[in-house]
């Protein structure tokens, strides 16, 4: 929804004129009580409240929609032709570049032309270029999620030749860490986890193969249309390769409810199909199609029938665990597992008949045997189409599986296709390939826009469309519609390669501007016209993500283990945390301690046990698609960074490293500490403060203090 203009005159006396707050409130009542009448300790107190509210709003605390009672969004149009007029359903048209970029401003590429044109319209100037020191730090976190090494910074600062920045960009785009960094963004979108959630939180021990697939796809710049198709229909493509089957693990990533006792087959099947359908909307279409499961979409022209037609592409899809071992190994495993299964079956039947104490004992035996089952051979937890088990798809009244309405077959949502298009026959051999083909049609209005917007969001902090999973009526309108279209058209033109787009974005002058405008007056003026910085009059600073903070502490103290790929790591965690698992035995700590220092993307994503460190710094809950993470700020983060095991252990390691590398010289130690942790030299004031501290206090505390600085936790 476009943020409605909201203002509240607080009518504070003693001020030169009314103070008006303009914001998008959580709801109207957030404002009640902020006036002087209730908090009458004078204007200063009242002002504190206004200040607080402003800050709270900035912090996303109240990043909520407007009061639905007074600002209802435009109702979905019932008129099909009219519905098609909505901006995101319109075909992408490659716009001409804006005429003559405004005089004086630096333009490096077409992105600048579009952004500068909008800034000029509003009478705004971009900020001055960022310093080279800031740029290399910004680029490294953005592209590889790690800080630059002091030597790399030195080399970059010393390289005064033309094209030094562009060469740095190319080096970083080609580093294997690039895929590790950008894969995490995609894993958030597809709510990647390696366990099924719910009661059993069953592990899919080989789901990491999908994570490695994504990393590799980004590193080798697999065209996005191919990337999409392999995930949707890897198992249908011929000839099947292991890579394509791995991509199709995509369909196994949703939470799955399994339960003991009387099976609820139809309900469970409905839940699986719902997961498989909804994620298509969130990840690829950028539409909240899931809203149409129970009723026609309230805001977008997507009917319930459209929803079930989309679901129909998955009607025949069933789990398919593909073994990767030899026939002999498989046979051996089968024999062992068959024997164990037989014994298990016998015990279970006995337990069903038994009562009381006897039953408890049998259950214990069952559990013991289960834990000793021969380990599963290498497998790809993929899917395939099983036409014998095809689910008949109906429109379901209120989404309830037992309330079957009209039967439907596969077809894309009406608003996005020719209305006379018939449904496809249900016995289509490769239904998901068909869906992928439709999504990757160069004329598709959403696919390219949605992915280039995701790229933009991660480079610039906020997407051109602020709601990356919702390009519908309830979502945001693009801040630069022509630029969005130009980028989408560019993506298709270059064969759906993402790396050239990354390159364009980070090589723009707009990306390279400072986060600090040229002076307070400029800042005030720009803040007045565009308080959210949607027009990009400065670079948007950001806090590091949970993964970046952990990885950076590891890198800074010299302990980061660069090993790539393979099964996920379970680090040792507080035993009380493991006891919060319904099956604590599931947390099998990895045997090799060196693995505990690997990058965060290689730590297991377990739905029912998230690491407190990650949780506290806004890792999404791994259960629903997350297009954009929160960036919250609160006391438990400070407690985690000050008292937590991880930060303290790594601060100790950092202190040891500094001691080792500074040769006992205090000045050199402080220099080195700043170079490693913050990528720059300390100012003389900083140097003095640190030196004074270190005269009395342990080095370990100094190291910990550096991890807690804003300059460490934020990128400018």
């Amino acid at each position, binding site marked *: 929804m476009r943020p409605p203009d909201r203002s509240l005159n607080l009518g504070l006396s003693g001020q030169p004129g009314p103070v008006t707050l*303009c914001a998008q409130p959580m709801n109207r009542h957030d404002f009640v009580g902020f006036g002087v009448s209730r908090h009458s300790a004078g204007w200063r107190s009242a002002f504190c409240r206004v200040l607080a509210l402003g800050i709270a709003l900035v912090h996303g605390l109240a990043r909520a929609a407007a009061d639905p009672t007074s600002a209802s969004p435009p109702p979905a149009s019932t008129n099909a032709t009219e519905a098609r007029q909505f901006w995101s359903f319109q075909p992408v048209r490659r716009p001409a570049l804006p005429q003559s970029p405004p005089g004086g401003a630096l333009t490096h590429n077409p992105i600048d032309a579009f952004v500068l044109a909008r800034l000029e319209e509003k009478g705004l100037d971009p900020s001055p270029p960022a310093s080279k020191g800031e740029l290399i730090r910004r680029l490294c976190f953005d592209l590889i999620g790690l800080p630059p090494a002091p030597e790399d910074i030195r080399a970059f600062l010393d390289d005064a030749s033309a094209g030094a920045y562009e060469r740095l960009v190319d080096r970083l785009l080609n580093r294997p860490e690039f895929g590790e960094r950008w894969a995490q963004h995609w894993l958030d979108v597809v709510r990647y986890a390696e366990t099924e959630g719910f009661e059993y939180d069953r592990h899919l021990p080989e789901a990491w193969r999908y994570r490695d697939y994504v990393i590799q796809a980004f590193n080798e710049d697999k065209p996005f249309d191919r990337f999409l198709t392999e995930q949707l229909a890897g198992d249908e493509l011929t000839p099947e390769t292991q890579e394509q089957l791995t991509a199709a693990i995509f369909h196994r990533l949703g939470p799955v409810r399994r339960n003991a006792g*009387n099976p609820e087959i139809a309900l469970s099947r409905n839940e699986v199909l719902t997961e498989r359908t909804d994620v298509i909307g969130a990840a690829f279409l950028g539409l909240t199609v899931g809203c149409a499961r129970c009723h026609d979409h309230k805001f977008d022209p997507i009917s319930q029938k459209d929803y079930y037609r989309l679901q129909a592409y998955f009607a025949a899809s069933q789990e398919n665990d593909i073994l990767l071992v030899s026939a002999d190994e498989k046979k051996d495993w089968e024999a062992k597992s068959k024997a164990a299964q037989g014994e298990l079956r016998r015990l279970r039947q006995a337990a069903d008949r038994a009562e009381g104490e006897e039953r408890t004992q049998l259950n214990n035996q069952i559990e013991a045997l289960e834990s000793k089952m021969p380990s599963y051979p290498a497998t790809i937890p993929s899917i395939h189409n099983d036409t014998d088990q095809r689910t008949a798809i109906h429109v379901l009244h209120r989404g309830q599986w037992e309330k079957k309405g009209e039967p439907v077959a596969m077809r894309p949502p009406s608003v996005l296709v020719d209305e006379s298009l018939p449904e496809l026959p249900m016995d289509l051999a490769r239904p998901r390939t068909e869906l992928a083909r439709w999504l990757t049609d160069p004329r598709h209005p959403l696919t390219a826009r949605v992915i280039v917007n995701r790229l933009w969001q991660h480079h610039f902090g906020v997407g051109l469309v602020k709601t990356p999973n919702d390009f519908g009526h309830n979502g945001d309108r693009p801040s630069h519609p022509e630029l969005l279209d130009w980028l989408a058209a560019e993506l298709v033109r270059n064969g759906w390669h993402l790396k050239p787009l990354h390159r364009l974005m980070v090589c723009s002058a707009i990306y390279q501007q400072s986060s600090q405008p040229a002076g307070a007056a400029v800042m005030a003026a720009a803040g007045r016209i565009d308080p959210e910085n949607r027009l990009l009059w400065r670079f948007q600073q950001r806090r590091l993500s949970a993964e970046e903070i952990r990885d950076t502490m590891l890198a800074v103290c010299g302990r980061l283990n660069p090993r790539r790929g393979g099964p996920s790591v379970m680090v040792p965690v507080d035993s009380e945390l493991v006891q919060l698992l319904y099956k604590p035995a599931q947390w099998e700590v990895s045997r090799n301690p060196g693995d505990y220092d690997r990058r965060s993307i290689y730590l297991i994503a377990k*739905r029912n046990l998230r690491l407190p460190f990650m949780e506290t710094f806004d890792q999404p809950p791994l259960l629903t698609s997350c297009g954009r993470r929160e960036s919250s700020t609160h006391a438990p983060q400070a407690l985690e960074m000050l008292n937590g095991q991880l930060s303290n252990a790594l601060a100790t390691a950092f202190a040891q490293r500094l001691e080792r590398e500074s040769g006992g010289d205090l000045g050199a130690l402080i220099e080195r500490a700043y170079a490693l942790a913050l990528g720059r030299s300390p100012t003389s004031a900083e140097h003095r403060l640190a030196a004074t501290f270190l005269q009395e206090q342990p080095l370990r505390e100094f190291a910990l203090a550096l991890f807690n600085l*804003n300059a460490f936790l934020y990128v400018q």
Partner: protein
Amino acid sequence: MSSNAAAHSRLTRTRREFVRDAFCGFGSLALASILRPQDLRAAGINPLSERPPHLPAKAKAVIFLFMAGGPSHLETFDPKPLLNQLHGQARPKEFGEAKYQFVKTGAKLLGCKRTFARHGQSGLEISDLFPHLATCADHLAVIRSCYGDMVVHSAAQYELFTGRIVPGYPSMGSWLTYGLGSESESLPAYVVMPDPKGALEAGQPMYANGFLPAVFQPTMFRPGERPVLNLELPAGVTLAQRRRTLRLINELNRANSTPADEEFNARLNAYDLAFKMQTESPKLFDLSKEPAETMQLYGIGQQPTHDYGRRCLLARKLVENGVRFVCVVAGGGPGNLQWDAHNDIEENHLRKAAETDRPMAGLLLDLHRRGLLDSTLVLWGGEFGRSPEAESGKGRDHHNLGFTMWMAGGGIKGGQVVGATDAIGLRAIENPVHFRDLHTTILHQLGLDQTRLTYPHLGRNERLTFVEGKVIDQIV
């Protein structure tokens, strides 16, 4: 937002002036309460600062006595003489169908061995499982017509806590904290005290903040005297030393040339609050100085009530000090250590009731005599009830079509029964109350309107109650 551009600029500029002038640079504010004890709480830069409710509120806090695993309504608050008469027979057809997790069609009904008596002036019927709680009968609004949509633990637990049968959505504790903030600066706003015997089927996602920002996540208390993770200084670090380290952080942040901005100020403030939590809250967690009479009241120091008593007393102290939502879980680990009485309803419920009866009654009496019961809503119940049919001869299966929960305090009118199940306790037939109606009623007592307590998620404004719930008018 252009229409208010001029006015807005006034705020922006003044805010900056104010920051600069009033505090000589906002950086100094960060550790103000360490450096200077007087209160400079910066007018709520803390994202958990208190917020006014939508409507006049009757309650300020909630304590949820979560009876995990699903206690039987038939053995506790919903006597069914007919069930005893029909013991050993198949369910008569006129009661309709029911789906259970384990019990198969055609299973035999199981009579109840408990005896019921009327208690208090209201004459509320409570079984002999709860002799202590029975003395509080006039505080209780017993809802006999609860129902949910799911008959398996995990999904039913999600629905009870979040209104959805799938994980990933915010729990009621997170919603309340989001809506109202916290009255306490040195305590977490939303606390869950799990049963030390083990975890529950739905796991952590049941209590979690879902798509709400991480600041609204629950603090999971650990067993023992030091319940909150990271409140303790690391081994070998003294408080004086840590104070000095915090000063260094503050000084170095200020020495940085980057001008102060709201984000940085909020982070500095978070460090201030963290230090307060660290120095002030451990005193509260220490129960060693509680009077003997209080310990006795909750059954602390005696078995089998010691553990649940401790946690109930802690819940009272937390609420007294401004915590918004406390969940005290009874039951954890394997089913029979929960109320999940598949094998033997008598053995299980006698044991579970003995562990919880005195602590719960102690909590209600203690809240009452301290004048806190009026502002504290206490909720009791599990994710479902138990089947009228027998499982394994003497046990009862899960049962979601009709079961009992109760509320007390927080403006709830006690000493009455809401709704009814049919004559064998199979189905809620009178005034049925869904989980979403419970949620709506809780929000209502705390002054929150379900339609206004929303957060944008996946393209719409999500709310706790999903589709709209009804306030239980009879008890508010």
